[in-house]
Each structure stands twice: as C-alpha cells, then as structure tokens.
C-alpha cells in the first residue's frame, strides 16, 4: 500500500554520504531546529514526502531524518532535528555554512494516490509534523491546481504552545480556503486561548466523511495507535490510514537488520505503512 522508492542501486548516496551545506537554520522549539540544506556538489535523487535521509554530522555519527521540506528544484532539502543524543545535538547545532553529509532518499513515501479526491486528515503529534509537512504542501498544491478534490484537515497536537513546530506554516495553512486546521496542546500557557487535550479529540470537529477519507498520521507510537484506533472507530478504513514508523536505523538500505518490526524492514517497507499492515504488529509487546 505504500510507495516503494524508485531509487536504489549502490553508488554514492546509498552507502557513502554526499556533502550538503546548511544554508539556513530555524529554531522550531527549544530543542528542535530545521536545517535548510543544499548539495555542495551533486544532489541526492529527489525525495518524496515521507522518505528519510541518513544525516551525518562530521565525526559524530549518523541518524535517520525525514525530509521536512523538499525544494521545488528537488535539490534543497529541509530536515528537522530534535537534540536528544550526541549526533542529533551536533546536527541541531549546525550553523549556516556547516557541511553535513546525507544518504538517501530511503524508505516508502506517503501514498498520495490513496488520497486523491478523498477527504484527507493529516494528524500530527509534536515533531511528527516534520515528515507530514511536505505532504501537506503536496496536498495543498494538488488542491489548488484542481488535481484533487476532497476536504483537507490538519490536526496538530503539541506539548505546549511554545513547542508547536512549524507554527508559521500552521498559521498559513489555516488561511487556505477549504482547509481545516486545528491545534491542541497538553500544557497551555496563560495566554493560550486554543484547545487543550489530545490530538484525537480534534477528530470530533474535523470535516470528513469517514467512508471516503484517507488519513496520514505521524507522532509518538502511542499517539499513532490511539489516532488510528479512533479513525477506525469512526469508520475510516485501516488501509486508508498511513502511519510513519520509527525503529533504529543504521544502513537505510535494508542490510543491517536493526529496523525490523516483525516482517517489516522499516527502512525498506516503511517508514510509511498502512495501518492494516502496521496496526496488528504494534499490538505485540517488544516486537
């Protein structure tokens, strides 16, 4: 149900990383930044929304990062990174001008074909909005170009108003006609006048017809399970609910074995997978 990457092979970009230069760095939240990068020389093949890169911080190591933005030229990429370990902290701190190196694109993409002329729900939890952002851009492009009908709902849950990633984008999307954008937070500050609660609570008021809806969900696994359960309960078919899975990645090319989730190699059969496939696997403890 997911779209398999058309790229492959073995040349530079698959195993050997390709240098990229940080051209801009935007602080998203206190521990999260978005790096806009462009190739120093040759570019990796074009990323599709949902695919990821292995991002290398010189001398530190490499981590998987979904593309949070894909330049129209196919060369510029955005990666949003949260400083949680040595490598992610080094990438997070990369100032403009810093060179990093990328491999990819790896993994499956959000399957836009399954959303054509359907109501679409994009459900994001925290930094989970990052891999969904290029998808929202593609959905908005398709709708404004008349390539797809259906309503678009973007539902975002964040820890606090200050930890809402891509706040400017969210603001901009909500101004688009035919687009329903809702944000909820766990911990409102004194000046927050928006909703408080879990992101699934936003489904109650999102405009969609369950029988003709496709949903794209990314966030902590607990949140994705809850959202997928809720969507199914409301009548959205499980094979129309796509989630983005997270497991350890070392190679990205299906050879190292770290990212297994039962029958899936998440770097190859994911990260995007239909909930009809992923859901049953997520019911097993420590699979």
């Amino acid at each position, binding site marked *: 149900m997911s779209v398999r990457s058309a790229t492959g092979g073995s040349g530079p970009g698959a195993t050997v990383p390709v240098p990229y230069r940080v051209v801009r760095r935007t602080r998203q939240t206190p521990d999260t930044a978005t790096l806009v990068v462009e190739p120093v020389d040759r570019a990796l093949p074009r990323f599709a929304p949902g695919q990821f890169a292995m991002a290398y911080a010189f001398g530190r190591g490499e981590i998987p990062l979904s593309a949070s933005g894909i330049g129209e030229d196919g060369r510029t990429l955005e990666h949003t990174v949260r400083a949680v370990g040595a490598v992610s902290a080094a990438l997070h701190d990369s100032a403009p001008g810093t060179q990093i190196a990328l491999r990819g694109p790896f993994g499956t993409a959000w399957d836009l074909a399954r959303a054509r002329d359907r109501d679409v729900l994009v459900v994001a939890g925290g930094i989970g909005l990052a891999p969904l952002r290029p998808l929202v851009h593609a959905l908005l492009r398709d709708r404004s170009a008349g390539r797809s009908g259906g309503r678009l709902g973007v539902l975002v849950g964040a820890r606090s108003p200050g930890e809402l990633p891509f706040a400017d984008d969210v603001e901009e999307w909500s101004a688009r006609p035919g687009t329903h954008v809702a*944000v909820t937070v766990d911990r409102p500050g004194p000046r927050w006048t928006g909703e408080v609660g879990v992101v699934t609570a936003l489904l109650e008021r999102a405009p969609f017809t369950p029988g003709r809806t496709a949903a794209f969900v990314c966030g902590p696994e*607990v949140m994705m399970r809850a959202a997928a359960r809720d969507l199914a309960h409301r009548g959205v078919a499980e094979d129309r609910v796509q989630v983005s899975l997270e497991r350890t990645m070392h190679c990205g090319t299906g050879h190292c074995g770290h990212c297994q989730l039962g029958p899936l190699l998440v770097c190859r059969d994911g990260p995007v997978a239909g909930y009809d496939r992923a859901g049953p696997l997520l019911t097993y403890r420590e699979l």
Partner: protein
Amino acid sequence: MTGGTAPRGGFLARLPEDGAAALLALGGDVALAAGTRLFEEGRPADRFWVLHQGTVTLSTRVPGRPEAVVETVGAGELVGWSWLVPPHLWRLAATAATAVQAREFPAAEVRDLCTREPELGRVLTLRVAEVVGRRLEATRARLLDLYAPPPGAAHPGRVP
C-alpha cells in the same frame, strides 16, 4: 483554528426512540457569551450541556497560579458528566472560551426520565461512560508526556 460547528455524530445522535423526544424536550437552547462560567468545582452538578457551537474550557484552581485549563470541549460534545454519578458534585470548573451555543439540560429531571425510560437511561449511561472513557484515555496519554524529550536525552529542554 478551534471550535467549529459540526456535531457530526454528537452526544445526542441516534438515541432510542422511546424517551428521545422527552429528553430533548427537557432541554433548552442557550447562548453563552465568552467568559461565562458554566459551573464551579465542588458545587452541585445540577445541569449539563451539549455544545452546538463554540468551546468550553474545563479547569481547576491552583493557588498562586492562573486558572489551570486541563481540557477543552467543543461542538457536539458533552459538557458535564458529574450530574449522572454520585455524589453529583462538579469535579472541575467550566468556562465558555468563546461564544457558545448549547442545549442545556436539568440534571434531576433527566435522571428521573432515565428511571422511567430504562432503555434511554441505559443508552445515556453508556454514552456518558464512553465520554468518560475517552477523557480517561486522553488523560493517561497526556500523563505520559509523549512529546517531552525522551528520558536520557542529551540536552533535555536545552535552549540553543
């Protein structure tokens, strides 16, 4: 970006025929201005609301801090379930965060109606249980603080 007016299923959808009309007749539509206090924590839970439009915040008081909002409730949803369950006292306070349109119901009369119409009572109780279950699930999920930096993060809460 919040609120909305689409009580698709909503709390009152598809009630059993016996008693549905009587229940709806017990209620009356109200319009509440933003800032209206619906109820206070610890007071008798004598009413409940089903929202048509607008948002209501549920909150509690922490001395020395601003009113602590724990959850918001929007169109189609039930505001208040303490009226159904002893001791019939509000667990939280509720405030209209926006202008609100709602149907307001008197708790004692609805409880009496549920006694007379057991099927309505059963369905209404189940539905309240569903709401409470959902809020419990949401509360547990938030208790996990899933969006927080993972334990052992290199720079938890760092400010670059």
